[in-house]
C-alpha cells in the first residue's frame, strides 16, 4: 500500500484578547502595541454605544410605523466597530446590511441609514465615503464587487506608485454557502489582491442555525481552499477584533494578499423587524448569548481596570442618545423625493421612452 505523505498542512487558530468574563488575556503591552490606549478604547466604546442606541431607536421607529423593515445589529457591534476604526478614509468598505457600527465610523450619517430603511434611495448616497458600496441584499454578491474594487486598487498602486489602498468586505455565515463567496476567495487569492474578508458569523441565517449551514467545523477554513490566511476570533471582543483587523489590513496593504477573519458573534435580535426568532430558537440560547455581548464586557473592563469611571461611561451614553435623537429629527423632517426621481437615475441621460413614461406619471399624457 502506498502511504500518503502530507504535501500541505492546515490549521485554524482562534484568538481573543478580552474574554467573556472581561478578563484581559496576554500582556497589557500588546494593547499598547496595537495603539489601544485608554482614549482609543473609549472611542471604541463610544462607537459601540452609539450603534446600539441608534439600533434600538430604529426598531422603535419601525414599531411605530415610521421606518420600514429593519435589520438590527444588536450584539454585533464589536466587529463592525473594529472595522470602522481601522480602515483609512481612502480605503473602501463593502458591507452586507448589518454593519451599522462600521458605517457610522466611516462617516455615514444616521439619517442616511434611516432613509435607506425608510424606503428612500437617498440613504445610499453617502456623503462622507463616496466610494463605499450601499447595502448588498442579494447575499454574498458583494464579495465579488470587493474583488473588482481590490483589483482596481492594485492596478492603481502599480501605476501610480502610491500607497496601496485596501478593500474590506463583510458577509454573514449564511453567505459562506454561496458560490459568489467561493468565487471571490478563489480570485482574490489568485491575484493576491489587497482585500480583507470578514465573516460576521452571528450563528443564524434567518432561521437556519450555523450547524445546519455547513459541516465545516469553522467557516474560516473555507479560505484554506483558496490558500488565504484565515483566523477565527471572538467577534464580541472589540479589543481582539481591533488587533486582528489591524493586522489583516496591514498584511493586505503590504502586498501579502487577501486575508480572512471569521468573527464569532451572535444575533441577539430577530433577523429583521419582520421576523420572529421565537419560532426557531430557544430563550435559553438567547440568554446565554446575552452573557457574552460586547458592550457589557468592555464597560466592565473599563471599570475594573479603572480606565474609566461610571460617570464617564454615562456621559458617553447621554451624548449618544442626544446624537441619535438629533438624527431622527432630521430623518423625520426630510421631505420625500419627487416621484420623478425613479426615472432620473436609471441612466445618465434619460431615454425617450422613459421621458414619455415620466410624462404619464406626472399626468401629462395617458397610458403611454
Amino acid at each position, binding site marked *: 500500500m502506498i502511504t500518503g505523505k502530507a504535501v500541505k498542512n492546515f490549521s485554524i487558530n482562534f484568538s481573543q484578547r478580552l474574554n467573556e468574563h472581561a478578563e484581559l488575556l496576554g500582556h497589557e503591552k500588546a494593547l499598547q502595541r496595537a495603539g489601544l490606549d485608554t482614549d482609543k478604547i473609549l472611542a471604541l466604546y463610544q462607537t459601540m454605544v452609539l450603534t446600539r442606541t441608534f439600533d434600538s431607536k430604529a426598531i422603535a421607529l419601525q414599531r411605530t410605523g415610521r421606518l420600514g423593515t429593519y435589520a438590527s445589529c444588536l450584539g454585533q457591534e464589536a466587529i463592525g466597530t473594529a472595522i470602522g476604526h481601522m480602515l483609512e478614509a481612502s480605503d473602501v468598505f463593502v458591507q452586507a446590511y448589518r454593519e451599522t457600527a462600521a458605517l457610522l465610523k466611516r462617516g455615514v450619517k444616521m439619517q442616511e441609514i434611516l432613509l435607506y430603511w425608510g424606503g428612500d434611495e437617498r440613504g445610499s448616497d453617502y456623503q462622507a465615503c463616496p466610494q463605499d458600496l*450601499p447595502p*448588498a441584499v442579494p447575499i454574498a454578491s458583494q*464579495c*465579488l464587487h470587493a474583488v473588482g474594487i481590490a483589483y482596481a486598487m492594485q492596478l492603481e498602486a502599480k501605476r501610480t506608485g502610491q500607497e496601496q489602498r485596501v478593500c474590506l468586505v463583510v458577509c454573514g455565515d449564511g453567505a459562506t454557502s454561496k458560490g459568489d463567496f467561493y468565487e471571490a476567495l478563489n480570485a482574490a487569492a489568485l491575484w493576491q489582491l489587497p482585500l480583507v474578508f470578514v465573516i460576521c458569523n452571528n450563528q443564524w441565517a434567518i432561521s437556519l442555525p450555523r450547524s445546519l449551514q455547513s459541516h465545516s467545523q469553522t467557516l474560516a477554513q473555507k479560505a484554506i481552499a483558496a490558500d488565504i490566511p484565515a483566523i477565527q476570533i471572538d467577534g464580541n471582543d472589540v479589543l481582539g477584533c481591533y488587533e486582528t483587523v489591524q493586522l489583516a489590513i496591514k498584511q493586505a496593504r503590504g502586498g501579502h494578499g487577501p486575508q480572512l477573519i471569521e468573527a464569532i458573534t451572535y444575533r441577539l435580535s430577530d433577523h429583521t423587524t419582520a421576523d420572529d426568532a421565537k419560532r426557531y430558537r430557544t430563550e435559553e440560547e438567547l440568554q446565554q448569548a446575552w452573557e457574552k455581548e460586547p458592550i457589557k464586557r468592555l464597560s466592565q473592563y473599563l471599570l475594573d481596570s479603572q480606565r474609566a469611571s461610571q460617570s464617564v461611561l454615562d456621559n458617553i451614553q447621554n451624548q449618544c442618545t442626544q446624537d441619535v435623537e438629533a438624527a431622527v429629527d432630521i430623518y423625520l423632517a426630510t421631505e420625500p423625493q419627487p416621484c420623478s426621481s425613479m426615472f432620473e437615475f436609471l*441612466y445618465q441621460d434619460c431615454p425617450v421612452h422613459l421621458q414619455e413614461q415620466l410624462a404619464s406619471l406626472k399626468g401629462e399624457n395617458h397610458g403611454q
Partner: protein
Amino acid sequence: MANNITLLEAVNQALDYEMAEDQDVIVLGEDVGLNGGVFRATDGLQKKHGADRVIDTPLAESLIAGMSIGMATQGLKPVAEIQFMGFIFAACDQFICHAARMRNRTRGRLSCPMVLRAPYGGGIHAPEHHSESTEAIFAHIPGIRVVIPSSPGRAYGLLLAAIRDPDPVLFLEPKRIYRLQTETVTNNGEALPLDTIFTLREGDDVTLISWGAMLYETQKAAEVLAEKNIFCEVLDLATIKPIDTKTLLNSVEKTGRCVIVQEAAKTCSVSSEIAAILAEKALTSLLAPVMRVTGYDTIMPLFTLEHHYMPSVERIVATVLDVMEF
C-alpha cells in the same frame, strides 16, 4: 486606416482602439488573454496591452460580472466577455441585481460603465447551450442597454459607443455572421449612436425590421421580393433597448405594413414589444396586421434540426406576401 474586415475583426479593432485610447478600459473573461478568446475576438490584445488589462479570469461567470461592477465603481471601464450567451445566467444576478441598479440605488453617487459581451445565436452547428437567443430577457430589465450589431461597421461603431456609455451595456455578437461578410471599416474611433435604428434599404411597400444575424436572411428576402415588385424597407434595430421608436414609426407610417424577423422564440420577445409599440402608436397607418417571423417557442434544437428552427428567406418572403395580400 481603412480595412476590409469581418464582424469579428471589427470587434477586435474596436477593443484595441479604445484600449489604446483609454487606459481605464480593461478586458476580462475566460480564455481572452493568450488564447485571444475562443472566437479570437480579443486576439493579440493581451500581448499589446498587458496581462493587467487583458485578464484571463478563472472559470466563474458571476465573478466576471461581479468584479466588473466593483472595477466600474472605481472608475475603470471593464469590457467583460461571457464565452457564450448560454452561460450568461450565472452572471445575471450580478448584472441585473447590481449593475443595472447601481446608479439608481445610490442616486447617481456610483455608476456602472461596464460592457458585457457575449456571442449568441444559432446556425453554426454548435453543441447544446451554444445557440440560444435570449436578448428579450435582458431588454426587460430597467437600467441596462442591449445592443446587437449586424455588420462589421456597425459592430465597430456600436462597440465603441457601448464602451464609452456611462451605463451598463449588454453587447450581443451574432456569431453566425462573425466571419460571413467583410466590409471596409475605417479605424478612426468614431462611435455610432446607441439609440438609433439603421435603415439598410429603402422601400415603400412594407417595413422589415430585424437585428443581428437575421438581417442576412431579411435582406435576401427583400431582394427576392423586389423581383416581384414588392419594395421592402429594411431596418436594423441595432439597439434592442431602448428602441428607436421614432425611426420605426416613420417607416411604418410610410409603408403601412410591418414584418418583424427574429431568431429568438416568439412569446414575450423583442418582436412582441415592437408589435405592441405599433399597436399603440401606428394603428391608423397600418394597412395589414403586424406579422412576425420568429424562432419557435421550442427549446433550440440540437444542430441536426436547427435549420428548421431558424427563420428562412422563404418564411420571410411568404409572410410578406401574406401581408401584401391582406
